[in-house]
């Protein structure tokens, strides 16, 4: 980015709430059912139907408000956002407008170089989702109403972000929070988390904002970063070339890595908001609020602190392990089986995260159960197998989905920890390699490693390395003393 300019970015995030039933009727929110099967007269918008608000929607939104340090308004109201589209059966979306439920919050995001930044939350409000249009059906367009009325929470940030990286970190934080609160699964690719970005640029130090453009249709975290980067650079180019920025709505094209303006007709909307007369104001009294607060799950910051202290983990480990709730959950399941907290952290941070990042899978779908990893770690610490063998067993656990003890037994990988047996092998090795023994006795102590290698080779890696080291030093020391005498 050109040093003369800075970007000003605000994000609008829509999070699909994980309620069992829809926002205003009793229909299921289950994803993937046959088209138009999760429907009733209410979400179909038939004449005479009325919405009844699902209390869970309020609770979930309040949770997010509390987690983002918002003021929870004692009274909030619903409004109608009016527009025509075939995926919107009533011709309006029930949303909140002038009186949202949560306002004036903030979150802290971590930036590279271990710096932090506070990003303001303007508001969080409740609304309903629209249906889906299916266009790939010859000349016809089909409507699937299943998603109509699925509850959404819209989180609007202040224009506090100054780079695509900050936007990315903000979005990551939002995802982390909704997952910790268990109110949204946070999956952008499947559309349960959606993000629109308002982007403008201005000369560094300028007080006024530049003209903003809105980017829509970014369906992954990386695409949000890419699209914003692209748009910032383009706006700077336009200004540098003497042009002016006009207000536009843009669509991100993930295939071309570019943004394109929407047709102006599509964006010329006057939504004619007005208070929803079919719903009463939402009243949240102190009692209800504190009840929700009391049962708020542990938030990522707290969990990071707790895990670092309780398990004596380095800050770096705690940070990485708590980045996503499922990973932190996995970790704590592992250490419910083993007391080797640091090993557990190492295994997850290196071996597991590598695989799930490469395979792009969720840790919840990782084939090795946390308890089995715990068992593997125990097998090392109690000397049953060596660390080296453990690294060999692990891929087998992933692929064959077997318990570590079963693999050890099956492949006869038990560590040799019998001192007598190891002593025998040490003696044999020293006898077989008399010239190397002479080198060692002559002062070339580096040959020690060679002996260890030979012993491991002989035992197919099963010899307890600690015992090998001990016995080998003992023997060599004895030989040395003999010569001196």
């Amino acid at each position, binding site marked *: 980015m050109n040093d003369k300019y800075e970007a000003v970015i605000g994000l609008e995030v829509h999070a699909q709430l994980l309620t069992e039933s829809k926002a205003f009727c009793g229909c299921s929110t289950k994803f993937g059912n046959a088209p138009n099967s999760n429907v009733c007269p209410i979400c179909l918008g038939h004449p005479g139907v009325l919405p009844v*608000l699902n209390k869970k929607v309020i609770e979930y939104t309040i949770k997010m408000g509390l987690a983002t340090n918002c003021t929870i308004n004692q009274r909030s109201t619903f409004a109608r956002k009016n527009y025509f589209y075939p995926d919107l059966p009533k011709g309006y979306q029930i949303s909140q407008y002038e009186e949202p439920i949560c306002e004036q919050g903030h979150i802290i995001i971590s930036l590279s170089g271990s710096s932090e930044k506070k990003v303001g939350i303007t508001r969080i409000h409740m609304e309903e989702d629209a249906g889906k249009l299916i266009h790939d059906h010859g000349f016809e367009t089909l409507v699937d109403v299943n998603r109509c009325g699925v509850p959404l929470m819209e989180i609007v940030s202040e224009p506090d972000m100054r780079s695509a990286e900050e936007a990315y970190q903000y979005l990551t934080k939002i995802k982390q929070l909704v997952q910790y609160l268990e109110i949204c699964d946070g999956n952008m690719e499947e559309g349960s988390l959606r993000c629109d970005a308002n982007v403008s640029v201005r000369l560094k130090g300028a007080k006024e904002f530049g003209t903003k453009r809105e980017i829509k249709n970014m369906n992954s975290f990386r695409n949000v970063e890419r699209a914003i980067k692209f748009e910032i650079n383009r706006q700077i180019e336009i200004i540098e070339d003497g042009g002016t920025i006009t207000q536009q709505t843009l669509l991100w094209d993930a295939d071309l890595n570019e943004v394109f303006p929407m047709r102006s007709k599509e964006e010329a909307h006057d939504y004619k908001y007005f208070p929803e007369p079919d719903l009463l104001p939402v009243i949240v009294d102190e009692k209800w609020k504190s009840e929700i607060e009391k049962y708020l799950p542990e938030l990522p910051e707290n969990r990071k602190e707790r895990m670092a202290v309780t398990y004596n983990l380095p800050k770096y480990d705690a940070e990485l392990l708590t980045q996503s709730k499922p990973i932190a959950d996995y970790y704590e399941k592992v250490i419910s089986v083993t007391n080797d907290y640091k090993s557990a952290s190492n295994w997850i941070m290196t071996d597991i995260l590598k695989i799930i990042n490469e395979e792009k899978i969720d840790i919840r779908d990782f084939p090795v159960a946390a308890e089995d990893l715990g068992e593997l770690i125990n097998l090392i610490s109690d000397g049953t197998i060596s660390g080296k063998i453990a690294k060999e067993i692990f891929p087998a656990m992933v692929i064959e989905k077997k318990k570590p003890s079963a693999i050890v037994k099956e492949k006869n990988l038990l560590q040799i920890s019998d001192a007598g047996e190891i002593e025998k092998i040490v003696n044999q090795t020293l006898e077989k390699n008399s010239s190397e023994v002479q080198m060692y006795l002559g002062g070339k102590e580096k040959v020690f490693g060679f002996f260890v290698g030979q012993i491991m080779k002989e035992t197919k890696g099963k010899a307890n390395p600690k015992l090998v080291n001990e016995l080998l030093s003992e023997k060599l020391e004895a030989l040395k003393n003999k010569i001196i005498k």
Partner: protein
Amino acid sequence: MLPYKNYSEKFLLIKEGKLSLVENVKFFLSEIEKKKNLNAFNSVFSDDALIDAKRIEEKIKTGEHGKLAGLVIAVKDVLSIKDKPTTCSSKILKDFNAIYTATAVQRLIDEDAIIIGKTNCDEFAMGSSNENSAFGNVLNPTDITRVPGGSSGGSAAAVAAQLCDVSLGTDTGGSIRQPASFCGVYGLKPTYGRISRFGLTAFASSFDTIGPFATNVEDLALVLEILSGKDELDSTSTDKVVPKFSKNLTLDNKIRIGIAKEYFGKGISPEVKDSIDSIIEKLKENNIEIVEISLPHTEYTIATYYILTTAEASSNLARYDGARYGYRAAQNSNLPDMYKQSRSEGFGKEVKRRIMLGTYVLSAGYYDAYYRKAQKVRRLIKNDFDNAFKNVEVILTPTSPFTAFKIGEKTSDPIEMYLSDIFTTSANLAGIPGINIPTGKNSEGLPIGMQLLANQFNEMDLLKMSYFIENKIL
């Protein structure tokens, strides 16, 4: 002629075997057929009604029956009944069958009432004369050259012409009380929130109410009792206790009547005024306290009403777009065109006028000047009534400034038409209950109506005073 004056008499006759319910339903069906020219019904459920009559007659004989067993009811065609046409008297829903039943209708059915058919009305309940129906005018049974009033014209005419015992209408700005007045029957608009709106096709959601038409106060009270009460499907319905209206009609507490000068100004026909004045005199003679009151914001009711109801209507009627159900224009080349054509062809003139008006008052740049300001005035009008009801229990006004007018007389001038509701819209703005009491006839034999209003959830005093007037004054 019917051999009974009200439902309790009818029930006794059936119970004692002196009246066959099946014959009674057959009588209504034949009357409906005979008076087809009135055009009061959009659909008649002859077969179902006869089957019900037979079944319910049995229930009455065994003693295991609902509270409205055998009451024959016609329902305004804006209320949903499962698998029955629900047209709202609009071309856009001409062939539409509801897929569920409105709570209000279900409560009647659950008490063994017989639903005989669905009545004609102004399209989407928008109108004061029933001339806005896509299925033609309803004629006034007293004088078929005149309108029955609107928008529940079919429901009022059906009761007046003895095509049913009781009917359901809806009242957004006078649509029960004004046609009741024009047709000479009782009609009650309850407190907003008293009766569930679930299944009532919305016109103006914060104004719409459902209420009964009947030939007598007792039947009104009984049906109101059944219809009232909290419905989990309507968030705006209240869980306020429902009094046993029908059992407590005797005037046994002090009810003071307020007369607001703002409701007796110019524009009111002399014959209407005389009729009501004579009632007031008789009330005084009967030691009813009459108190002069003032409702100072009355002059703003019509303007406020038309801004707010059209705003809500423009949104409520957006769902009729030809995309999923209802009428879709045959000729259309793209999506916006389909919307435009379907709605242009499907809606009538008055509905389109109101959608445009409502869209305008909600538009960016106009919202504050119209919608928001009207909301504030609505609050002032409500305050007027709150103040008035500190000193009186009911307020007495004419229902309409005039009696039923000639068909076509006001169709060219919407403002003139809107004025026929000048005394009724305030109750909907304030959410209070109101009733039309037929007080007599003018020199041409046309019914005159008087309106009583009461405070929110005080239908009891309203009904008591109406019952007193019905039995002691008229």
